[in-house]
């Protein structure tokens, strides 16, 4: 091999051909181009005109240069140039490829495959046999035998990154079995393309491979080493999660995203990992509602199964156990437990039972009222292992404090407002900003008449979450072991305070219960967890592989990600549980460099490139251009007039071609905005979807024009002319409202358009679907509108419900109770749970059938275009609805707050 810097030639002899170029030069100069043909009627006059007739006219210099370049390219291509050749020692040993395709390979997989292919190419060139082995194979039953490199390549094509870690013990077993049966040779070149993550079987595998030949382990290299995500842990203000990595040579910034079930991002944050730091914890502040909505946390940009943590129902709805008291007297309104149960039921899976049953049901929080007080050591264990214990004070605690308390208590407690006291019942002080209760408003009627008192000095400020107005602690909390102990210094019933009677009480409990987390949510019941959705190697939920098996509930604790139990969401009855690649407390570490007999190398980014093929293709391309030039010179290309600087153009074309050939050349993608986007973005406009029916489109346009005019006249909003949107091609994000007339024969949306519509709704847009057939809807006899059903199937629409009388749409500008259009009476549907979306509570779709466009439509002079069923009064109502709609689209749930205005005014008056 002969090399020039990074360029080498496999057949350098062919370069001698370059010496013929000067000869070629003379030859090309001597050969005139074919004559141009011209029909010339006055030929007679031309006869015997002077001409140094056959003195050859030289081919133009640039054409000669062009042809020489062509020849040079062919010669160079025949010399088989290689860019950045690997210094591979030519060998005749058989090749054994061991490829890690577990979750950690996801980020480097393409390069790993390229490396493997390259090794197989080398083996094929030298006529060596080869075999390939995957350590995380889903079906590890293929026979491991040396054979044609093509067979190995086909196996490689069939493999993908898996969601589970590699099983190197199993791989070692397969290698030693093959070695014993003689399917492998004794002296092989062994390439282990690894993900660089240590597993139990790594040493074993290295030990098995070492006697079979020289083992080279190829690591992914610094940029592509895997990142993993630890189990998320609930904190009072949200949750925290740990980012793990094995390669700490470089600082790295990782962005995390927490997504809800519908795929919308709920939270996003960034973690900076400094040099030599392999793990970093990040706190994400998130209100409880939003936190409960988190269904997965992912590392953005580098998606892999290990970079994904799925949450299950244990995460979302804490399982809270209320310890039953033996001495309940059957009077619910006097029972502490009654108040607690009523307070926590809305947001937890509450269960009232004795301690044994509760602990065996694996609750994540225990609530212990005074009457149910117990000194059982299992409670201490429960807290130490990560449980949340919420205690309430009472006469017994006041009489005899115990140890499982956040603060030391004084015996006896404190009494206000009684006959023997000078003091009035105390109200609560506003919550401190660092308290978990921060932001909750304190109602004045929440008074406390008795409480247990903390010993002064033991109630450190960080343990006190709520105080009375005089500063005495009302709620104290303490971290114990992995868990929390929270003490309310009053009873859970109304005996000592009015707090349990106020709305504040359930809100405080809700904040506290945010601390509870799943731990293991597995009840020890019989049955087996069956996989519902599995993570794939890219960290996306997909259909489970056929290899998945049910996991018996008893062994759920010990389940780890593997081909039989792929990570994902498992179900047992109504319960769901997540199996993640990294379980709680698990860490990842780098493959030790001390593996026996293994030399390490990095996956080199710029692998060698052979470009004899592309060069020859390019030469062919030039040959075509040459033919074209020849024809142009001969006048046979009728309308092609070569520009005067033809040479420069040809050189430019050739140069561009070369540029395209260069390995590092990457064209930057430019994007230009067309006028549609500019128009749409520069002004506030409504939009309507083109249906292809000219009448309907004209009506939509007239309707939105009329509505825009009304809104301009009546409100501060100043929309300009509406725009037509072709749903298959145009971008939607510019429009606050899109009016979508739906016909029964509406065509199916393409997948791309459907995704665009879903994205539009998720990003806060509002689509008004109007079937315009409220008057004829009865003829469908309850069957869904076929066009609408097709549309809604295609796009991602949350559950819908009829507009309720309190909906913001009824009061965003005018107070309305009906939404008439040309027709009135059609049911109008909105999202059932607008708070369920990450969109500030505004519904993303409104579906109706009242043909609003017709009612809104006006001509240029402002005259209505179409008759309305209920006359001018109904047209006015339709316009008011339109104004409300526009306000709703622009202000969201802003007007919802106005519901409280009367109450607020009343309070201000006092």
């Amino acid at each position: 091999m002969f090399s020039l810097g990074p360029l080498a030639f496999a057949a350098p002899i062919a370069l001698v051909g370059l010496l013929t170029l000067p000869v070629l030069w003379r030859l090309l100069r001597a050969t005139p181009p074919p004559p141009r043909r011209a029909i010339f009627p006055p030929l007679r006059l031309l006869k015997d005109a002077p001409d140094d007739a056959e003195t050859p006219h030289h081919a133009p210099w640039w054409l000669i240069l062009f042809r020489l370049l062509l020849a040079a390219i062919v010669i160079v291509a025949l010399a088989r140039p290689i860019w950045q050749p690997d210094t591979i020692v030519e060998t005749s040993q058989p090749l054994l490829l061991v490829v890690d395709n577990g979750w950690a390979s996801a980020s480097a997989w393409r390069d790993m495959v390229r490396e493997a292919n390259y090794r197989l190419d080398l083996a094929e060139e030298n006529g060596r046999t080869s075999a390939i082995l995957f350590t995380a194979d889903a079906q590890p039953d293929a026979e491991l035998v040396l054979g044609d490199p093509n067979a190995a390549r086909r196996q490689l094509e069939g493999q993908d990154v898996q969601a589970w870690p590699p099983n190197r013990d199993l791989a070692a077993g397969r290698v030693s079995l093959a070695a014993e049966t003689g399917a492998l040779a004794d002296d092989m070149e062994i390439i282990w393309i690894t993900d660089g993550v240590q597993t139990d079987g790594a040493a074993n595998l290295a030990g098995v491979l070492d006697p079979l030949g020289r083992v080279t382990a190829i690591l992914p290299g610094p940029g592509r080493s895997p990142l993993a995500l630890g189990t998320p842990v609930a904190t009072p203000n949200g949750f925290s999660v740990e980012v793990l990595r094995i390669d700490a040579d470089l600082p790295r910034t990782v962005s995390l995203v927490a997504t809800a079930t519908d795929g919308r991002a709920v939270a996003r944050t960034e973690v900076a990992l400094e040099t030599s730091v392999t793990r970093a914890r990040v706190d994400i502040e998130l209100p409880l509602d939003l936190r409960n909505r988190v269904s997965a946390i992912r590392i953005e940009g580098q998606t892999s199964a290990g970079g994904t943590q799925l949450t299950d129902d244990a995460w979302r709805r804490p399982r809270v156990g209320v310890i039953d008291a033996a001495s309940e007297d059957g009077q619910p309104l006097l029972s502490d437990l009654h108040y607690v149960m009523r307070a926590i039921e809305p947001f937890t899976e509450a269960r009232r039972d004795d301690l044994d049953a509760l602990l065996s049901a694996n609750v994540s929080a225990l609530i212990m009222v005074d009457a149910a007080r117990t000194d059982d050591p299992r409670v201490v264990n429960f807290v130490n292992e990560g449980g949340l214990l919420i205690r309430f004070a009472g006469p017994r605690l006041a009489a005899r404090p115990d140890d499982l308390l956040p603060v030391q208590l004084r015996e006896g407690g404190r009494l206000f407002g009684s006959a023997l006291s000078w003091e009035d019942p105390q109200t609560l002080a506003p919550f401190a900003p660092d308290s978990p209760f921060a932001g909750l408003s304190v109602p004045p009627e929440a008074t406390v008449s008795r409480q247990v008192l903390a010993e002064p000095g033991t109630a450190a400020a960080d343990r006190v979450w709520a105080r009375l107005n005089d500063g005495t602690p009302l709620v104290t909390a303490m971290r114990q072991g992995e868990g929390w102990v929270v003490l309310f210094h009053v009873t859970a019933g109304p005996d000592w305070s009015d707090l349990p009677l106020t709305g504040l009480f359930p809100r405080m409990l809700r904040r506290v219960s945010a601390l509870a987390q799943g731990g293991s949510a597995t009840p020890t019941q019989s049955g087996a967890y069956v996989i519902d959705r599995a993570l794939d190697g890219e960290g996306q939920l997909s259909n489970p592989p056929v290899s998945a098996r049910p996991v018996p509930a008893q062994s759920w604790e010990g389940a780890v990600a593997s081909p039989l139990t792929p990570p994902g969401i498992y179900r047992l009855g109504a319960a769901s549980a997540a199996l993640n690649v990294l379980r709680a407390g698990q860490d990842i570490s780098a493959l030790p460099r001390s593996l026996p007999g293994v030399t390490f190398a990095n996956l080199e980014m710029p692998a060698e490139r052979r470009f004899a093929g592309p060069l020859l293709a390019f030469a062919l391309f030039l040959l075509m251009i040459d033919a074209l030039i020849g024809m142009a010179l001969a006048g046979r290309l009728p309308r092609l007039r070569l520009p005067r600087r033809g040479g420069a153009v040809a050189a430019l074309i050739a140069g561009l071609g070369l540029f395209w050939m260069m390995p590092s050349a990457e064209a930057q993608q430019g994007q230009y905005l067309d006028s549609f986007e500019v128009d749409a973005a520069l002004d506030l406009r409504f939009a309507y979807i083109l249906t292809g029916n000219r009448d309907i489109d004209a009506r939509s346009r007239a309707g939105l024009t009329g509505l825009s005019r009304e809104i301009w006249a009546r409100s501060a909003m100043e929309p300009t002319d509406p725009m037509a949107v072709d749903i298959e091609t145009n971008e939607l994000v510019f429009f606050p409202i899109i009016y979508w007339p739906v016909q029964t024969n509406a065509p199916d949306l393409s997948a791309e358009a459907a995704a665009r519509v879903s994205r539009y709704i998720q990003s806060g847009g509002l689509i008004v679907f109007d079937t315009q057939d409220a008057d004829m809807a009865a003829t469908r006899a309850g069957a869904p509108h076929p066009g609408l059903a097709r549309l809604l199937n295609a796009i991602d629409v949350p559950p819908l419900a009829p507009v309720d009388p309190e909906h913001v749409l009824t009061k965003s500008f005018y107070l309305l109770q009906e939404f008439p259009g040309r027709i009135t009476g059609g049911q109008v549907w909105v999202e059932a749970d607008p708070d369920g979306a990450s969109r500030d509570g505004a519904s993303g779709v409104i579906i109706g059938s009242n043909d609003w466009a017709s009612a809104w439509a006006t001509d240029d002079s402002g005259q209505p275009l179409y008759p309305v069923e209920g006359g001018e009064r109904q047209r006015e109502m339709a316009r008011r609805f339109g104004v409300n709609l526009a306000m709703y689209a622009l202000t969201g749930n802003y007007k919802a707050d106005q519901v409280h205005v009367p109450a607020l005014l009343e309070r201000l008056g006092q």
Partner: protein
Amino acid sequence: MRSPFARDDTKRAADLRQAGEAAAAPFGELVAEAERIAASVVMGVHGQRKRGLGETFWEYRHHRAEDGAQAVDWRMSAKSSELYVRENEQEAANTVWLWRDGSATMDFGSSRKLPLKKDRAAVCMIAMAALLSRGGERIAALGESARARGGEMGLERTSIRLGTGPGSLGSVESAPIARYGRVVLASDFLDPIETWRARLSRYAALQAGGAMLRVIDPMEEDFPFKGRTRFESSDDSESLLFGRAEEARKAYRQRWAEHGNQLADLARSYGWTLVTHRTDRPATQAVLALYRALAREV
């Protein structure tokens, strides 16, 4: 060859007719002044400068005995003691023979933007036909029309023949025309001067005069060729190869100019007018020049 006009004959005739009428539109009535020709006495619109049957007043003369009482112009006679007779001018229509060369060399247009020489010649001829027939002349396609006709029908028939007829040189050499007829020939006149001299001499014998419209393509005049070029005649019968066409340019242009001069001399010697027209110029220029030429021959 390329042509902006349709291939289909009927359609083509209509197209050419339309283009011709468009070219004729800017002109007023073209009334070709007739020469005094005693022989052709067909009534028409040309004053014959002598008394005869007509509509326009010519002269009053004294009454003669043979005139009879009806001939007296009583209004004039009442002014004096003499009897007068009112005489009108003798009027006659002239006949114009139009010919458009259809030989192979005319079937040529150097660029897609330019019309074929043949088509441009036809357009000019039809324009002339339109103007002449509107002025009351009788027109005919030389060698193709059986007899000259006036009016709309004559224009229609002549246009079709001018647009789609063969336009053979035989018509020029032997077609019968009346004495003192007027002839308009549209051709590229590429044949040798002597040939044309022989052809025109026949008209001189008939005392017919007229105009020649020489239609040339810009390429023929400019000779824009460079480099190695093979020139072929229109009918592919012969070809000439030039290694460096630009070297022949000077000699060619000299010969071209010489040919043009000889042609002009020839025309002058027979009392014809030569109008030279390049196809890259508007057709109206050529029609205007022909109009002037016919009008001048008073």
